[in-house]
C-alpha cells in the first residue's frame, strides 16, 4: 500500500511547528500504524543521510519523534491524532493497535500530536503528560502502608462491584480524553481513578477527599471543565463510560457538603 503522510514537525517546546508531507510505499496491510512510522523513519534517516536526496530537495527534519512502548495497547505511551481522531479511525484501540488495513490505498493521512494546554509539546508528536502523574499524586491512591494489609478475603467484594471497578481501572492514562475534549478536560481520566477506588470497600474511607483533591489539582494544572459532550467516552481506547464522571461528581459533592 502507498500513502501520503502529512505529519506535524516541531523541533522543541519553544519553536513553532509545521506540517511536512512524505510519501511512503510498499506497506503491508497487516503492518501496524506505528510499524509504518518506523518504516518512514528508516526512510527519513537514509534520505537525510544521502546528499543526493538532500539535493533533490528532501526535507531533512530527521526522523519523526513519537511516544510508544508496549505496542499492545496497555502501556498508554502512544498517542497521535490521526485524521482528526485520537488514536485514529478504528474504535476502542490505541494507536499501536491500529492497522494499515483500516486506510485506503493511496490515502493522505494527517498525523498530529495530542493537543492540550496541559500537554506541552516536547518534540514533533511527543507531548508532556506529566500533569496526569501530578493529578494522581494529589489523591489517586488508598493510604495503606506495605505490610499493613489483612487477608485478601477478609472483606468480601461482590463480583459485580469488582467488575465495575475493573471497568474504570482499565484506563491506560494515554490522554485521548483530554485531546478529544473541546474544553481540554481531564474529567474522564480523574473519574476513572476516583470511581475505580470508590467502588471498592477499601477505597471508601478516602473517597470524597480523593475526589476533591484530584479535581482541584486538575483545575490547577490547566485542564478545562466538563460540559458533558461525551466526546471523551467515544474516543477512549478502553471504552471507559462517562457514568464514572457521575460517580466522581457524587463523591465531589459529598466532600463539598462536608466542608
Amino acid at each position, binding site marked *: 500500500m502507498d500513502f501520503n503522510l502529512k505529519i506535524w514537525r516541531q523541533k522543541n517546546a519553544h519553536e513553532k511547528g509545521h506540517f511536512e508531507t512524505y510519501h511512503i510505499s510498499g506497506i*503491508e496491510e497487516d503492518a501496524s500504524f506505528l510499524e509504518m512510522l518506523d518504516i518512514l523513519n528508516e526512510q527519513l534517516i537514509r534520505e537525510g543521510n544521502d546528499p543526493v536526496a538532500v539535493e533533490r530537495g528532501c526535507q531533512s527534519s530527521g526522523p519523526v519523534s513519537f511516544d510508544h512502548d*508496549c505496542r499492545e*495497547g496497555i502501556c498508554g*505511551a502512544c498517542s497521535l491524532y490521526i485524521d482528526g481522531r485520537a488514536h485514529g479511525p478504528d474504535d476502542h484501540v490505541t494507536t499501536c493497535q491500529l492497522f494499515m488495513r483500516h486506510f485506503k490505498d493511496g490515502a493522505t493521512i494527517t498525523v498530529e500530536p495530542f493537543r492540550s494546554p496541559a500537554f506541552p509539546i516536547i518534540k514533533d508528536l511527543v507531548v508532556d503528560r506529566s500533569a496526569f502523574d501530578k493529578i494522581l499524586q494529589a489523591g489517586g*491512591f488508598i493510604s*495503606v502502608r506495605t505490610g499493613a*494489609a489483612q487477608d485478601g478475603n477478609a472483606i*468480601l467484594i461482590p463480583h459485580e462491584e469488582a467488575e465495575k471497578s475493573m471497568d474504570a481501572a482499565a484506563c491506560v492514562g494515554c490522554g485521548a480524553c483530554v485531546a478529544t475534549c473541546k474544553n481540554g478536560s481531564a474529567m474522564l481520566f480523574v473519574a476513572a481513578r476516583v470511581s475505580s477506588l470508590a467502588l471498592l470497600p*477499601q477505597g471508601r474511607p478516602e473517597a470524597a477527599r480523593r475526589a476533591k483533591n484530584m479535581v482541584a489539582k486538575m483545575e490547577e494544572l490547566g485542564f478545562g471543565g466538563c460540559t458533558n459532550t461525551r466526546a471523551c467516552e467515544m474516543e477512549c481506547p478502553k471504552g471507559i463510560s462517562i457514568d464514572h464522571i457521575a460517580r466522581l461528581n457524587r463523591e465531589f459533592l459529598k466532600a463539598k457538603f462536608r466542608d
Partner: protein
Amino acid sequence: MAEKLISKIPDGPLAEKWTKRKSELRLVNPNNRRKLEIIVVGTGLGGASAAASLGELGYNVKVFCISDSPRRAHSIAAQGGINAAKNYQNDNDAVYRLFYDTIKGGDYRSREANVYRLAEVSAAIIDQCVAQGVPFAREYGGYLANRSFGGVQVSRTFYARGQTGQQLLLGAYAALNRQVAAGTVTSYPRHEMLDLVIINGQAKGIIARNLVTGKLERFGAHAVVIATGGYGNTYFLSTNAMNSNGSAAWQCYKKGAYFANPCFAQIHPTCIPVHGEQQCKLTLMSESLRNDGRIWVPKKMEDVMKLRKKQIKPSQIPEEDRDYYLERRYPAFGNLVPRDVASRAAKERCDAGFGVNETGLAVFLDFSDAIKRLGHQRVQERYGNLFDMYFKINNVSPWEEPMMIYPAIHYTMGGIWVDYDLQTTIPGLYAIGEANFSDHGGNRLGASALMQGLADGYFVLPVTIADYLSNKFAEPKTDINDPAFEEAEKAVQARIDRLFSIKGKRTVDSIHKKLGNIMWEYVGMARSEEGLKKAIEEIKELKKEFYEDVCVPGEQNQFNQELEKALRLEDFFEIGELMARDALNRNESCGGHFRVESQTEEGEAKRDDANYMYVAAWEYKGEDKEPELHKEPLKYEFIEVKTRNYKE
C-alpha cells in the same frame, strides 16, 4: 576473586531461613532513615514497589524511569496473573508446593532458599494489593477467584481479567505517588541511567541522560537499586516493550557486578506469529488461554498444505485428523506443561513440516471445545479481551477459527548475580525483579514474574537494604563533584560523541534486526556448539559494522530517540555475546536452554547435574577481553533433584 560469590544463605531449616535472616539484619532508626538516600532505577513492579516501600519507611528515594510516567513500565503488559500460596481452593496448595513447583519448573537451577522465601511472602502480596484497591476477579460470593497456569496442578493464580500486570502496577504506582506527595520520593521520568558510579568500591550514584534536554546529569546516593527488567530485546523481536533494554544492568556488569546465567532466556509458546519483514514487535497471548484452549496441528500433511493455500479452514478439519500433540506427549499436564516444554514441542511439529501458516511457523490454539463446554458467556468473561486483541491484530475471530500461535522471546531468567539479601557483588548495589537472576532457574513458571517483582520490592529489599545502610547514616551525602562522577560522565560523553562521529549509512534498527536474526538462529530454541561459536563471531563482526556504518541523526542535547536506541544496541551486542558464551559453556539442556548435544532419545531436554549444577556468574574483564567464569554451586538439601516429568 571467587570469594565474592557468598550467597549469605542462612543455615537452619528451609522454612525458618527467612525469619532467621530477618532477625539478624541490622535496622536503621527512623530519624536516621531520612538522612539516607537511595536511588531506584526502573518503575516496574519491582522498582515501584521498592521505591514506595522505602519511601514509607522514611528514606530519601530518587526513582528513575525512561518512560514519560512510571506507570508505563513493561510490567504493565503482563496479562494472566500472579501466583500465591493461599490455598483458597482447598486443592492442597501450600508454601512448600509453590516452592517445589517453582524449583522444578526452573529445572533445578535456582536457589532453594530464595525460592522458598518467594513462596513464603507470596500470600502477603495478594493481601497488600487487595488493600491498595487492585480489582482482582471475584466469585459471586465476593471471594477472590483463581485460575491455573502451566507447570502446576493447583489453582493458585490471582487475576484481574487479562490485565493483571496493569492492575498490580497501578497499585504499586499509586503507592509510589502517595510517597511523591509525601515528599519522601522524587520521581525522574524520561531519564535513562547510562552509568553506575562507584566510590571506594561502593555504589554511590548514577549518570543519567535527561531524555528531554539530552543533558547528562549526576545523582548521588548511599545505595543504588537496579530494577530495570530483562534483556529479551537483544533478539530485536520479542514480547518486550520496544524501549525495554538491558543497559542499566549491563553498566553494572561493566563496573564489576557479576552477571549470572545470561543464557537462560524464556521463549513463550503462545505469541502471535511473525507476519512479515516490517514487524518490530511480537505480541503475547496470555498463558491463561491454555487453561481452556487446546493446541494442535493437523495429522495429515495434505491438510497442512490446504491450510497454507487457504483452501480449507481449520475448523473444517475433523477431530480425528487433529494432533493435540501436548495432550499426546504429556498426558498428565496436557496443554498446561511449562513454557519451555510447550515451546519446544511447537518447534518440533513445525520443524517436522506441520506448521499451519504460510511461513510454516505456527500452530493452532483452539477454543471450540471450551465454547461448547462453558458457553459463550463464560468464555467471554475469561478471555473476552484477549479474543478482541487477537481479532484486532489478525482480523480473524477466535470465536470462529482457532488462534495461530508460535513461540517468541519473552523473559530472561538470567540477570545480575545477587546474594540472599539481593545485593550484587558491588557493595551498596542491589538488583531486584527480572533484573536479577535468583528465583527462576532455567525456566520461569507463568504468573511468577509479577510475584517476584512485588516480593522483592515490597517485602525483601526494604528489609535487607537496611542492613547495609545501618552504618551509613553518619556519612555525608554523596558528593556529585567527586572525581568518580567526573570520570563516569566523561566516559558516557565519549560513547555519545563516538556514535555521532560515525556518520554512516545504516539505521540502528536495521542493524539491531540483524543481531536479532543471529540470536534467534543460534541462541534461540535449539543451540549447538557450532552455532554458538558462529554466533559469537557474527556478533563481533556485526558490532564492527555498527561502529563503521551506523547513522545516528540529530544531536545530543535534544529529544533524540535514535541516540537512545544506538546506546542500547551497543550494549545488546555485548549482552548477546555473553549469552552465547554462557550457552556454549553450559553443555547441557535445562529449562529454556536447549543444547542439541544434550537430549534424550525422545528429544526431551537432558540435564547434566554432575557437571552443571551451578550458577554461572561472569565477571567483566575489560573491552575485548574474555570474561571470567565463577561458579556458585547449587545445593539441594530439602528437595530431591529429579528429571522433570510432565507425562505422568
